């Protein structure tokens, strides 16, 4: 402990010598929300920085003098002011940017450009609220996972699944974080929607590979979702109704802070069930999100975030609902507390305490008493500390701790008895990371080391990471990254079924090796114009000790999981235009992924060779209405087909032998579906009605009604021949909605 104090004192003292320094926060002038990755530059010095996720920046080693400091950010008017820097003094600023009118679109690229110049962010894609809600909406509901699915390297296996298959990794290899809360099963309605209200989300960052040492415990990617802090200037609200759900968002100031609350509940399933006279069957889901911020003082800020999401499916006897009913429910809930502190001008840190819980329940009730109940849950307790020490504006050191406890439990109550099983895993990790622009405007290195320890099996896992950026010119840079990643929690359910309710997570059994992956990534970034970015990346991911379900099984017991090796490799292209009369992006992914179990090799069902996503947005195209198109083309996904059939006789006690048909499976995932393609269109028009901004939106999914295959099944026709039938994905589906904001 004494060593830690000495180290901290050294860090604090070393930043202030002979020169001066400038630090501060950059916020939105209208809402008070921090502006993430805003560009801060001291003109004429070559010194510059980007704000961190809390809007904080630090510029050290500034020679005494008077300067012009410029701050710019996407969608905001640039800010410029004169500052005076004195020797051994810290100049603290609190800068507020005002939203820019549309015609100032060209300044919207500066922050992204600033990140390009100062960060090693290989395989990183970031989207803010405006971009998330851009794409046409399924059922009128924006879904951030659906938008993320349109990025390069990300594929989805069906219209009914929001699962993310990133660079050949299965969905359980993605770490999903909401304000530091780990979300284990981020889906509603069997995978159609995710449990986040997009309008309450400030920023989504996808780290598709080679992610920094700060993150761990997953093999493929990190999806870091940050909730908006809420408007600290005035009370605002927003309500919307679509064909699927209604939602409301309210936010406003509180003493020394702000608060935001968002809620959504479905009603479409209720309507459909009523229309189809499905008496005795009910379904709904809801989401609650909230965040509160409290500024303790200038240097310390506390925030609380919460998530509550649940699906409820119930059956009952329509004539005697109290006599017999069944209720299934599952969902996510979590809270986090975050303390963001400027311990000294050069030492910024955040301490996060988070609790998250995925729960599932199944209850059969007879009259007044419960007769059968099954409850399962997965609880995560997480204490994290992330610290950044600013050596100077081009050199920072990050370090931190990530202490977790995961508890999995299952309890079954049956009349007078019950049994319960439980398991606990403690993943503990510490990391150190250095980001150093060794040659100004030429070479940036980001070496890091994460040391992880997993209690189950007493596994110690070193995870070295390295990121490199080399500038070929003002507009072009080469990126590379390599790193080792391990994962102590896995899922037991197969991802093959088209619909799944939720995943079942367990620790890696202690007699099995921890699954690991090594990422090798290289790419080029090029700014074609001020607002057009082209990114090309290639990657190779080497998997070891993966634990896969058995072929044909929905669930495989932990001890029976099969050890698999494998790889994923591919190339990606992203052309993104952030502003102008036409904006959007084109994403192309080329991918190979393969698994080997003993002597059998196969391409898993998410091995899509080519995938193209085109998103085009025409803002204010006609009479102020926005028009958006999204087109997707993906080559066929593998599936496990059939090779033959045979008569299967089963003899029953006391009865005759019965014959049924059974099919003979072909090799695992040896067949491929036809190519997938779909065009969506969205139209929205916002008008001022009294104090309200009222938006009417019309979205059409699958505009030309492509018959994309969801699955094949076989039946015997009257002639005794097996015949293949197909079920298609979503047909043309128009939806209408309205949104009001004050």
């Amino acid at each position, binding site marked *: 402990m004494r060593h830690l104090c000495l180290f901290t004192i050294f860090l604090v003292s070393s930043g202030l010598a002979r020169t001066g320094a400038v630090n501060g926060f950059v916020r939105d002038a209208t809402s008070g929300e921090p502006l993430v990755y805003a560009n801060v530059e001291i003109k004429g010095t070559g010194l510059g920085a980007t704000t961190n996720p809390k809007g904080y920046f630090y510029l050290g080693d500034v020679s005494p003098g008077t300067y012009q400091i410029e701050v710019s950010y996407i969608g905001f008017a640039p800010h410029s002011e004169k500052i005076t820097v004195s020797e051994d003094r810290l100049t603290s600023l609190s800068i507020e940017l005002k939203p820019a009118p549309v015609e100032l679109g060209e300044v919207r690229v500066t922050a992204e450009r600033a990140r390009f110049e100062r960060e090693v962010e290989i395989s990183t894609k970031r989207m803010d609220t405006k971009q998330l809600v851009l794409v046409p909406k399924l059922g009128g509901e924006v879904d951030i996972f659906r938008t993320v699915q349109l990025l390069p390297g990300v594929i989805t296996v069906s219209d009914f699944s929001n699962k993310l298959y990133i660079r050949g990794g299965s969905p359980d290899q993605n770490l999903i974080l909401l304000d530091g809360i780990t979300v284990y099963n981020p889906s509603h309605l069997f995978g159609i929607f995710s449990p986040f209200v997009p309008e309450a989300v400030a920023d989504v960052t996808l780290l598709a590979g080679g992610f920094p040492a700060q993150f761990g415990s997953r093999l493929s990617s990190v999806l870091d979702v940050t909730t908006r802090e809420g408007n600290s200037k005035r009370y605002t609200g927003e309500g919307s109704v679509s064909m699927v759900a209604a939602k409301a968002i309210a936010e406003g100031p509180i003493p020394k802070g702000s608060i935001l609350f968002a809620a959504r509940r479905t009603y479409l399933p209720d309507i459909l069930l009523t229309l189809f006279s499905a008496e005795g069957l009910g379904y709904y889901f809801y989401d609650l999100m909230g965040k509160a911020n409290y500024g303790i003082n200038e240097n310390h800020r506390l925030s609380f975030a919460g998530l509550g999401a649940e699906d409820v499916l119930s059956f009952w006897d329509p004539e005697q609902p109290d*006599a017999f009913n069944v209720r299934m429910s599952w969902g996510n809930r979590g809270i986090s507390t975050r303390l963001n502190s400027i311990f000294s001008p050069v030492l910024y840190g955040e301490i996060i305490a988070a609790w998250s819980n995925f729960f599932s329940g199944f209850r059969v009730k*007879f*009259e*007044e*008493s419960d*007769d059968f109940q099954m409850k399962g849950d997965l609880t995560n307790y997480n204490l994290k500390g992330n610290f950044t020490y600013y050596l100077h504006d081009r050199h920072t050191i990050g370090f931190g701790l990530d202490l977790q406890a995961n508890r999995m439990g299952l309890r079954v109550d049956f*009349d*007078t*008895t*019950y*049994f*319960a*099983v*439980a398991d606990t895993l403690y993943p503990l990790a510490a990391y150190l990371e250095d980001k150093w622009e060794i040659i100004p405007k030429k070479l940036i290195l980001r070496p890091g080391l994460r040391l992880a320890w997993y209690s189950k099996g007493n596994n110690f896992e070193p995870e070295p990471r390295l990121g490199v950026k080399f500038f070929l010119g003002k507009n072009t840079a080469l990126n590379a990254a390599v790193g080792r990643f391990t994962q102590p929690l896995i899922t037991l359910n197969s991802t093959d079924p088209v619909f799944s309710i939720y995943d079942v997570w367990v620790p890696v059994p202690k007699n099995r090796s921890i699954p690991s992956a090594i990422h090798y990534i290289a790419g080029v970034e090029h700014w074609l114009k001020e607002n057009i970015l082209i990114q090309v990346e290639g990657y190779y991911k080497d998997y070891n000790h993966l634990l896969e379900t*058995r*072929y*044909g*099984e929905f669930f*495989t017991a932990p001890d029976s999981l099969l050890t698999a090796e494998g790889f994923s490799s591919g190339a990606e292209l992203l052309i993104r235009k952030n502003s102008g009369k036409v904006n959007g992006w084109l994403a192309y992914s080329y991918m190979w992924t393969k698994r080997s179990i003993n002597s059998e090799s196969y391409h898993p069902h998410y091995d899509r*060779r*080519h995938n193209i996503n085109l998103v085009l947005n025409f803002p204010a195209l006609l009479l102020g209405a926005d028009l958006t198109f999204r087109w997707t083309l993906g*080559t*066929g996904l593998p599936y496990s*087909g*059939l*090779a*033959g*059939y*045979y*008569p*299967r*006789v*089963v*003899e*029953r*006690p*006391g*009865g005759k*032998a019965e014959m*049924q048909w*059974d099919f*003979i*499976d*072909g*090799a695992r995932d*040896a*067949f*491929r579906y*036809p*190519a997938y393609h779909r065009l969506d269109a969205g139209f929205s028009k916002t008008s001022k009605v009294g104090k309200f901004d009222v938006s009417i939106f019309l979205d059409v999914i699958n505009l030309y009604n492509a018959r994309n295959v969801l699955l094949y099944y*076989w039946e015997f026709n009257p*002639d*005794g*021949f*097996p015949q*293949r039938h197909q079920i298609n994905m979503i047909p043309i589906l128009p939806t209408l909605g309205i949104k009001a904001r004050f």
Partner: protein
Amino acid sequence: MQVKLLRLAHFALFLFSACELTPDQPFAPQLVVHSLLRTGENRARARVNRSYKLSEKYDSLFPDARLKITSHIGEWQFVYDGGDSYITPEPVPVENRDTWFLVVSHPDFDTVTGRTIVPQPYEIIFPRAGDTISVNDSMVWTRSQDAKGYYLSFRQVQDIDTFYLDAIIPNDSFDITYDSLLVRIPKMFFLFLVAPPPDSPPKPCTLWVWALDTNYYDWVLGATGLTGKDSMHLSGGLGVFGSAVENFLPIFVRGDTLSQRLRLQEKRSKPVYRLNR
């Protein structure tokens, strides 16, 4: 320029189409055998057919197979019995704990072999023949030590062909009330499907219990579609060669409501069994 574009288009077409070819799935037809030896049965029976390509039509006639079963007692040959059925002309004495071997051959297919060990005997303690039971009663029988599981079947006597209730019960130690000597079903709440209304006279039913060897237990479970790939325990072909020990008894099922029972239970203390707590 146009030539370049054309080449580019060809290349793109190649990229998109080449990887979409579904490889030909090799398919070699195999013999499909079903044979279940049961204690108390007179003659052994079997059905033999083959597997088919998806493009082939099923043929219910399969006359040219040769079958034999052997044990330490002797060897029995099967004869063709029409369709795809075969039967031993002589009675086969299937006894508990005996090991039996099956060989099926056909000139056009690989030879199929299998082995089964007949489970040990067991006795149903409750209900007894002629008892009247309800959903709140337990069922108890002595454990058959070599069986992998039990196949239970309740059938209404009046409606024997159209209504039955089957259950597969493993013979393993996962059950919280595990007893190495006895198997219990603490409450047969599934009987409410066959039970008459509470005030009606009891319904006559027949209860069958088969203790199954590993082969047939896996085969029956595989037919439910709940498990993954079958463990067929045959070499050279598909199907099953298994054995079962049968018990059956006539019983009566009376109406009862769970609520009546549960109200009674509220007055009693609840015993609790714990595992890993």
